[in-house]
């Protein structure tokens, strides 16, 4: 693409939106770096779509400013912003064929010869043979690609995607995720992607902002968010976390020592986002796949220096690549453990006494005053 717009970042400063007494978006500051694939992730009603619509100009912010590069676009109507949107359910014009749908933006800006550009776009999304079709004659995945092409042909500084894959089935969604990522790399335009699917956000985005209740809970690269969640909402919403309530017994060193259910656990002090003091409470977190499971009879074989929790398996489900166990322990109920199916220990069945053990470096600490279940099961489709 020969986009000469230097563009720049999308900067939202103090932007908020209230409808009557309901606050959809609390004042937030957000910077989307130019050329990045940025995801706004959250459950429905968290304010992510409203934020996106304020960037598009379809929603007027109650307070705050929207900058594109150095330009304040807050008061510009949508048709004067160098920003285009891929709508949820695509919003293709039903009375126009695919060719005219894609050419729409160019024609409105008075571009005379649209043929070559539309042709290029049809090639980019691999729909060259469908130019004369009407939108309803295309499959969901094809319509989705037309929606992307219709927006991209205008070389926007920023492409906004509002749950663009929500209506597709799982397999097609995976395929389109890769496709969108490919297109983004190819055209180099900033993408802001709104989704409630945490896997989708992590697969596609360079940067993810996790939103909850109209606020940004945490912002960072996917791996960073996953490994170092700073709130229980992020810990539970992005994947699954085991959160154990513990009492701090030792601070000061590079490691924090806590007790939970009568056992001692340690975690790196710099991975604890909460302010701690001896005798205080903290939530200790560990991801299910980081935990190894040993039968109680083999407890002696576990290496020194690992965190241990004893418990009893209450449920196990075999899902192919791994087996997922649910373990009740004095430290916490219903701890999740994902064991890869390399060598399966047949003794690990419901009812068995087991020891959960993991590398203390994989442990993180969270402020214990939060709701421990925040963000659990709020994803509409738990895929």
């Amino acid at each position, binding site marked *: 693409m020969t986009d000469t717009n230097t563009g720049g970042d999308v900067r939202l400063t103090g932007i908020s939106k209230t409808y009557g007494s309901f606050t959809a978006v609390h004042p937030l500051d957000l910077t989307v770096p130019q050329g990045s694939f940025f995801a706004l992730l959250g459950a429905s009603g968290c304010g992510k779509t409203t934020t996106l619509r304020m960037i598009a100009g379809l929603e007027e912010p109650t307070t705050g400013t929207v900058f594109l590069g150095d330009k304040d676009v807050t008061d510009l109507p949508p048709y004067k912003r160098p920003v285009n949107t891929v*709508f949820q359910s695509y919003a293709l014009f039903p*009375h126009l064929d695919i060719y005219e749908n894609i050419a729409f933006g160019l024609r409105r800006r008075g571009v005379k010869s649209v043929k070559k550009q539309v042709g290029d776009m049809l090639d980019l999304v691999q729909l060259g043979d469908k130019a004369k079709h009407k939108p309803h004659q295309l499959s969901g995945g094809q319509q989705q690609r037309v929606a992307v092409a219709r927006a991209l042909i205008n070389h926007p500084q920023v492409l906004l995607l509002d749950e663009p894959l929500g209506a597709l089935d799982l397999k097609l969604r995976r395929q389109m995720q890769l496709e969108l990522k490919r297109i983004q790399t190819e055209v180099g335009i900033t993408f802001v992607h709104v989704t409630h699917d945490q896997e989708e956000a992590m697969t596609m985005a360079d940067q993810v902002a996790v939103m909850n209740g109209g606020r940004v809970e945490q912002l960072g690269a996917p791996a960073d968010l996953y490994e170092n969640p700073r709130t229980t909402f992020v810990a539970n919403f992005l994947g699954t976390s085991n959160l154990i309530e513990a009492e701090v017994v030792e601070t000061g060193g590079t490691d924090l020592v806590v007790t939970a259910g009568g056992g001692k656990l340690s975690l790196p002090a710099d991975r604890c986002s909460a302010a701690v003091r001896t005798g205080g409470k903290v939530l200790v977190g560990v991801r299910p796949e980081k935990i190894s499971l040993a039968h109680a009879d083999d407890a002696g074989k576990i290496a020194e220096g690992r965190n241990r929790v004893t418990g009893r398996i209450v449920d196990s489900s075999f899902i192919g690549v791994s087996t997922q166990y649910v373990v009740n322990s004095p430290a916490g109920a219903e701890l999740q453990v994902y064991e890869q199916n390399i060598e399966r220990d047949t003794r690990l069945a419901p009812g068995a006494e087991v020891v959960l053990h993991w590398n203390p470096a994989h442990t993180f600490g969270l402020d214990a005053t939060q709701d421990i279940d925040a963000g659990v099961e709020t994803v509409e489709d738990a895929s």
Partner: protein
Amino acid sequence: MRWIRRNLVVIAGLLTLAYMIVPNIVVMVFSFNKPNGRFNYAWQRFSLDAWKDPCGVADLCGSLTLSLQIAAWATLGATVLGTMIAFALVRYRFRARGAINSLIFLPMAMPEVVMAASLLTLFLNMGAELGFWTVLIAHIMFCLSFVVTAVKARVMSMDPRLEEAARDLYAGPAQTFVRVTLPIAAPGIAAGALLAFALSFDDFIITNFNAGSTVTFPMFVWGSAQRGTPVQINVIGTAMFVIAVLVVVAGQIVTSRRKKAATS
């Protein structure tokens, strides 16, 4: 027996169709009649006289022209106003919206005679001169409800995101309306307009009350039926029927052509 059972739906359909079409066929057949005397009620013999001279009866073609004029203006007025009302009712939240929403059905629900009589009272009290304008005002009034209903159904099923998409794609408010809103609402508007034309063209009761000395085509037919029915009335009726059928058939051919072009 099995044949009947298998084709029962088709037979029932054809019988219903016949029930609707037979009166039209009678009108058509009798347009070729050469009656003895003034009443065209009994078949005598085939003749093309009436078809050769459709305006042969005094005042017939004048009343037809007048009816067509009134129908055209009423359609235009009711369609423009009705479309605007429909958009306002669906798109905007304003005071008295609920009241307007239900009151708009009143002309459809109210017995026509009552409406005709009250309109006449109103016109007389206002000192209006009965004639073309009072008839036109009355027709626009009762056509409005039908247009509003037809357009509203269409606008309600329209995805507001389509207009947002247009605005997002550099179309200003006027462009958005002309390029996206109007074409998508067009079938509803067209249905409303057709309905308005048909209703206005053959309205008798309201027109008869408010026309003064002006005579529309339905009034002419009614009036002449007292003194005898010229064959020309059947000729006009048949012509209208044939034109309507041709319009429908042409519409269907165009749509199916378009569909074929799109799929091939």
